[in-house]
């Protein structure tokens, strides 16, 4: 076996998993349901891993995998086709000509299958965190082990969660369909939530030592781009994609070489990805022209204002505070009010800001939240009330589970002590 052929095969398999696995899965699910589709696809990929290095990589890896997976699916259905429905599926799959199934891969209608997959694994009747796991497994093609790592759970636990989700989809009859127009917006919201959750998980790991999990953030961006194309640039999808780009553009400036987190006011703005910012802004413009702004559009507009500003002090905080006020009318989350208070403090001064933050102290969802303590500490520091600032930093450090964030807060606390 030539090492070259082996390398080529490995690259082709990796590319298939990244770019084509979800397309093929989507087409298979439509033909034979989730359980058989996934089993057959995994078996076909295993066959590729065994055969391609020796026999050479096929000219169309996706078509090869599809053909092998279909044969596996027919075998699997033969064994379990006891009920009439199973038999009908088997007949349809067997009678379909190879060529027809393969041309489906190139078909325009193919995108619809993948869109069905988006809506099915983000269905509201599936638990939220399971939706995220399914999206990573089925849409991104991550292995069960990788998904388990992203959630900090044992692979066996994740495997069981995915199996149960599949059982729920099949037994409970979660439809493999793109929702009707009247329901599209509500159902799309659930898909967008999942992508945002993947991105945030990649952006700030809730627990653990690495601040940015770039892989997951990249994955969310990739899926958002695919989704935008599939839903015909629906303004809500465009807005989310814009938001992700406008935040992700700052990734290189967000972490120091020693892994330390760098806040917005200390970031080297020369490191920001200008191309990504301008793409984000143009997508946001398109979304805003299409109708009244969604919550994602408002969030994206806030990030765009940060991205546009030459420095932290020059930022248009008055407009940012106003945008947070608008956002608060759409999403009733206390963290939005906290952000508004911080932006206000940049316009009206720390005293006013502190008053707003203290008023939020008892808000549900913010009690004991590290973001509240951190905002309070920062305002007290700006007011020169050092002893109180240090106490607030202590509370914030105590409350955060993210290691780099904890180090960042400790560093700010040390600065206050040093006077």
């Amino acid at each position: 076996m030539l090492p070259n052929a082996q390398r080529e095969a490995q690259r082709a398999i990796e590319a298939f998993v990244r770019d084509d696995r979800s397309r093929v899965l989507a087409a298979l699910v439509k033909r034979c349901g989730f359980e058989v589709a996934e089993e057959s696809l995994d078996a076909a990929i295993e066959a590729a891993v065994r055969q391609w290095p020796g026999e050479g990589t096929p000219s169309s890896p996706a078509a090869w995998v599809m053909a092998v997976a279909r044969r596996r699916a027919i075998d699997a259905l033969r064994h379990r086709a006891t009920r009439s429905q199973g038999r009908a599926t088997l007949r349809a799959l067997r009678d379909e000509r190879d060529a027809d199934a393969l041309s489906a891969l190139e078909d325009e209608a193919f995108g619809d299958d993948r869109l069905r997959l988006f809506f099915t694994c983000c269905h509201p009747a599936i638990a939220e965190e399971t939706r995220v796991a399914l999206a990573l497994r089925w849409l991104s093609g991550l292995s069960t082990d990788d998904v388990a790592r992203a959630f900090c759970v044992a692979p066996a636990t994740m495997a069981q969660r995915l199996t149960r989700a599949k059982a729920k989809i099949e037994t409970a009859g979660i439809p493999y369909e793109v929702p009707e127009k009247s329901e599209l917006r509500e159902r799309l919201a659930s898909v967008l939530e999942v992508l945002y959750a993947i991105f945030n998980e990649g952006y700030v790991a809730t627990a653990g030592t690495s601040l940015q999990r770039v892989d997951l953030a990249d994955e969310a961006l990739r899926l958002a781009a695919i989704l935008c194309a599939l839903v015909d640039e629906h303004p809500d999808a465009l807005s989310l994609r814009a938001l992700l780009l406008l935040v992700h553009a700052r990734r290189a400036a967000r972490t120091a070489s020693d892994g330390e987190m760098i806040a917005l006011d200390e970031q080297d703005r020369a490191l920001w990805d200008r191309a990504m910012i301008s793409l984000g802004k143009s997508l946001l413009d398109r979304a805003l022209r299409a109708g009244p702004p969604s919550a994602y559009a408002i969030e994206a507009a806030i990030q765009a204002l940060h991205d546009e500003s030459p420095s932290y002090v020059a930022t248009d905080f008055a407009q940012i505070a106003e945008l947070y006020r608008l956002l608060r009318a759409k999403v009733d989350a206390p963290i939005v009010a906290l952000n508004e208070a911080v932006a206000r403090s940049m316009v009206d001064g720390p005293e006013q800001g502190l008053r707003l933050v203290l008023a939020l102290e008892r808000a549900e969802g913010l009690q004991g939240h590290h973001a509240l303590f951190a905002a309070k500490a920062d305002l007290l520091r700006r007011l020169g009330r050092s002893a109180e600032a240090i106490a607030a930093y202590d509370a914030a450090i105590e409350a955060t589970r993210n290691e780099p964030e904890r180090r960042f807060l400790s560093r700010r606390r040390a600065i206050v002590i040093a006077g």
Partner: protein
Amino acid sequence: MQYVLLIYAAESRFATSTPAEGEAIMQAYGKYTKDLFSTGRAGDCAALAPTHTATSVRVREGKRAVKDGPFAETREQLGGYYTIEAETPDEALAWAEKIPAATFGSIEVRPIMKMPSGAPAGGDTEASKAPKLSADTHKQYLLLLYEDEKAWETMTDEQRGAVFGRYMQFSEDIVASGNFIAGEPLDPATAARTVSVDGSKRVVRDGPFAETREQLGGYYRVWAKNLDEAVSIAAKIPAAESGTVEVRPVMDTSAYV
């Protein structure tokens, strides 16, 4: 008197049993079902898919909230039911203790509520005109209605009449659409008795299986194209506004009966 026999057992028992053990339980149920139906006293029955396939539906201020999972996350879960016609409560109890799960779970025996008009949900005339749905295009779901019984007790007669009216309307609608298969309102949980069999000893106690604030108050068994349609139907039940409707797929047990 009509009664519903509600079967509660730990689902983990099925998850950990071997295929042969599972098959033996199904065979035992098949035999029990045949015996019960041969008396001509049985009404309706269903076996439910496990609770990890359940979905809960609530409607608040006109907005629908759909959640993964059953109404209550308890170790022992409702796994199925039979309805029977019995002369006395003891006769109902005698049928309950013969249910296979009585030896490893509990059976709650609850009287079915007598409707004011005396008519069961859905008149026959509408049913005959309704489209005939079947397993070729549809799946069966059980919609379980959970509500705080206290709220019912504190209502005026007028308010109760209004609620009854809404249920009658809902039942007529789903009979006319062909979705309706069966459905019964239940007497309050205080009227329930719960039985289990320990060895050869029968243990009976007064009260429902679970002493919770919100109780099963009734059910509908329906045909629906998929979960989305089942959830839409569930959301139209008045209990979705005042309590929770749990949507459970019904298992296909035709191979055993």
